[in-house]
Each structure stands twice: as C-alpha cells, then as structure tokens.
C-alpha cells in the first residue's frame, strides 16, 4: 500500500493537480469571497487525477505490478482524501493570515470556521461517494462522474443554506436503519430547512444503493 501511495503521488499527481488543490486555500485570502466555492476547485483536481490517469494509461501500468486490485483502488481513494485534507489544512493558515494582515477581511458567507469546515467535509463526502463510485463503475467516463459528483457536492451547499433559519425550530433528519430515513419537521420550522431535510433524506438511500 505504501508503494502504491508513493506511485499515486509521484507518478499520477502532477503540478496542475496541486495547483487546483491549493486554489481552495488561496481563495481564503480573497475578501468577501464565498469560501465554500474555493474548496470546489479540489474536486477539479480529483477529476484531473483520473483523466490524467486515463491519458497516461495508468490502469495498464498498475495492472502489471505485483499488487492486489483492491489495493490499487484503496491507494487512489486515499490519494483523493489526501488532496482534500491537504486543501483544508493549507486553507487554515491562509485564513488566519488574511484575518491578521488584511484590514477589513471578512468571509462572505459569515459562517464560523468550524461550521464552514464541517460543511466542506459533508460536501467532499457527497462528492466522493458519487464521483469515485461512478468513476470505477463507468470506467473511462470521469467527466460524467464529475458531473454527478458536482451535483452531489452542491446538494451539500444547499444544506449549508439551510443553516440560515434564525432561531426557528430546526428540521432534523433521522437515519432509523441502514435504509430508512425520516425527516422530523416541528411546527414553525423554516420551509427551506424542511426542503433540504427531504433532499438529504432522499439522497441517503440513493447513495447507499450506489455504494
């Protein structure tokens, strides 16, 4: 596995992949920029990882190595996770630096840091579960997988919007079992909150089936 990860980072990941990954972090220093958009660039770098793999015939090279097939997939998924975590990790010091040294710098979405990062984690999770699964199921069609992954990513964005409901009671999504998901929407709760709860509830069984 260590060797496969080394291969992913040395052979498969080139400069353009890292440039897109760093965009999310760099966008942090742009005043009034919606930061959750910046993190979207990392998903482009993930797609580049796959398209470049196809262009370089990586599947043929790796298939001839003395490695297990499931380890090949695991290494690629770990590489994707590394890129996403790398983007998040670099964005923290750049946000701190921007807040300290740029007068009047503020976030356009106004979310506290922990909330922003938790939403980005959810968005990445939704993207990964859609993109990676489709990439391996529909081999050779990373663009299609990226399209579906992007939709999943922006479902996470709408979830973020549903956090703006003031002090009204919140709709909650309950995962009752592996397949059954319900939405608990108390009286007086925000309409957008209820809608997002239903979308999320609809996504869970779909994602489970896809996986």
């Amino acid at each position: 596995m260590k060797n496969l990860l080394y291969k992913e980072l040395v052979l498969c990941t080139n400069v353009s992949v890292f440039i897109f990954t760093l965009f999310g972090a760099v966008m942090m220093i742009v005043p009034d920029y919606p930061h959750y958009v910046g993190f979207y660039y990392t998903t482009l770098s993930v797609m580049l990882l796959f398209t470049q793999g196809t262009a370089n015939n990586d599947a043929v090279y790796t298939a001839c190595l003395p490695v297990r097939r499931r380890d090949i997939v695991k290494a690629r998924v770990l590489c994707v996770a590394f890129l996403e975590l790398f983007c998040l990790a670099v964005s923290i010091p750049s946000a701190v630096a921007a807040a300290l040294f740029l007068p009047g710098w503020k976030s356009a979405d106004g979310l506290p840091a922990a909330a922003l990062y938790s939403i980005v984690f959810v968005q990445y999770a939704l993207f990964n579960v859609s993109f990676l699964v489709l990439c391996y199921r529909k081999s050779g069609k990373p663009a299609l997988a990226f399209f579906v992954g992007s939709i999943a990513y922006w479902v996470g964005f709408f979830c973020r919007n549903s956090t703006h409901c003031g002090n009204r009671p919140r709709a909650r999504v309950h995962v009752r079992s592996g397949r059954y998901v319900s939405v608990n929407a108390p009286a007086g709760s925000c309409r957008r909150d209820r809608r997002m709860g239903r979308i999320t509830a609809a996504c869970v069984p779909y994602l489970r089936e896809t996986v």
Partner: protein
Amino acid sequence: MKLIDVQGLCKKYPGFALKNVNLSLEEGYIMGVIGRNGAGKTTTIKSLLNLVHADSGLISINGYDLQQSELAVRQTTGFVSGGIDFYPQTKLKKLTSVTKRFYTEWDEPRYRELLDRFEIDDTKKVKELSSGMKVKYALAVALSHNARLLLLDEPTGGLDPAARDDLICLFQEFIEDGRHSILFSTHITSDLEKCADYITYIKDGTVVAQTETGGFRQSYILVAGRKDQLTDELAGKLIGAHRHALGFEGMLHVQDKALAAGLEQSLPTLDDIMVHAERRN
C-alpha cells in the same frame, strides 16, 4: 519443475473464444507461440498473469497456483507486451524509481548493466524513445527483478535485425542456467527458429500443435510441381495449396510423403507452416 502448467484454459468473448488451452513448459527452455492476428496468443499470455480473467481452467506459474498466489506469480514473472505505452511524459529514471519499489528482489546493478547494453539513456522521457527502445526498456525492467519466467508478447516487433539478434542472445543467456524459462509470441518466426525449443501453434483459440521446434518443422514438407502432377489424391492431402499458371505448390504432412514422389520438396520454415495452415483454399 514446470514453470508453466495450464490445463483447460477457456475464455469467451463475443465473437472469439479460447478453447481448452493446455500449455506446459519446463524450466530451462524457450517456448514460442505462433498464430495469426486474433488467434488468441495475447489472451493466452495475459491469462497467465490474470490480466485477463479466465472463465475456467487451472493455471500454475513457477509452482504457484495463480488464483491463490497471484502476487507471488507476478513477483517471479517478467511481462513485456510490445514495449511501454504508459506515462509518455515521464522520464525513465522516475518510472523505474517507482516500479522497482514493488519488487522485493530488484537487482539494481543488473538493471544498470542492461541499460548500458541496450544503450538506453534513462534521463529521456518515454515519448522520446523509439518503439524498439521502448521494448528494450521494458525488457530491462522485466529482467531486473530476478524473474524465473519471462512472458513476452511480440517483443521483437519494433526491433532492427541486429537488435533482435542481441535480444535472442540475451534470451539464451537467461535460460542457460537451467532455472529460467521464456514464453514468447511473435510474428517474426525466424527469431523462434533461432532460439525456441518448443512451438505452440494457436489457431482460432485452439492449440493445434505443441511440439519441439525441429520436430514441428520436420513433420511437414513443402512440395511444388507442374499442373499435370496434381492428382486428385494429392489435391485432397495438400495443405494450403496454391495453383498458378505454371503448376501448384502446397504443404504435406510427412506421413503423406509418398504422394510427393517426383515433386520438388523442401523443409518448411515456421512461416511456411503457418501460411499454409492458415491459407483458405
């Protein structure tokens, strides 16, 4: 010890099927696989490394069962498939630095020696190599991890005659200790005549012959004669007969040699055998 032992290998594709292929190769020998394009040579070789999943059959390589010990099979087997067509923008040095990490018995001095022998500059990118140099690089890698068995799919295709001759010498050096073997497919059958101990002939997904190279050639004779010498009995026995204005030519099994009395006779090359066997009358 058998380095290759394949029994009842079957693989079905739409429009093509590999049917009940049996292969056996002891250590210390070179086996050539011949057959026309699409006959199933590449599918057979790839099945030996699980690069193609066989539908049925038992495959044992270097004493390891392929299904149970695939990694051990790959560690002890070198595979070259007509050069390298991956990572064109990557320098050979970088590609090797990654590849060698996967092999527990990587032999760096041997790799350096082979680069010098093949005159390969490892600071070049893959795309800067000619097709012949790509084959040589792939061979250098395959020969540098102490593989006991080499599986080569069309390795001499892009090489000039001098390079092919050098390669054949290298193959003979590889097996001379009696512990290594080579299985390779090629269309350049003259290379096999120089070095292969055994020949496997695959036609339409079926092994039609697996025998010693010399014996294989001696089991046929080429005949040629005038039109009036072509009797009905002879015409019925001729393989790949070709009639022309001056007469005819074709191939006979050696047991039908009596029919060739009075005709021009010669020992066929592997090329002749393949051409006549594949020719549609």
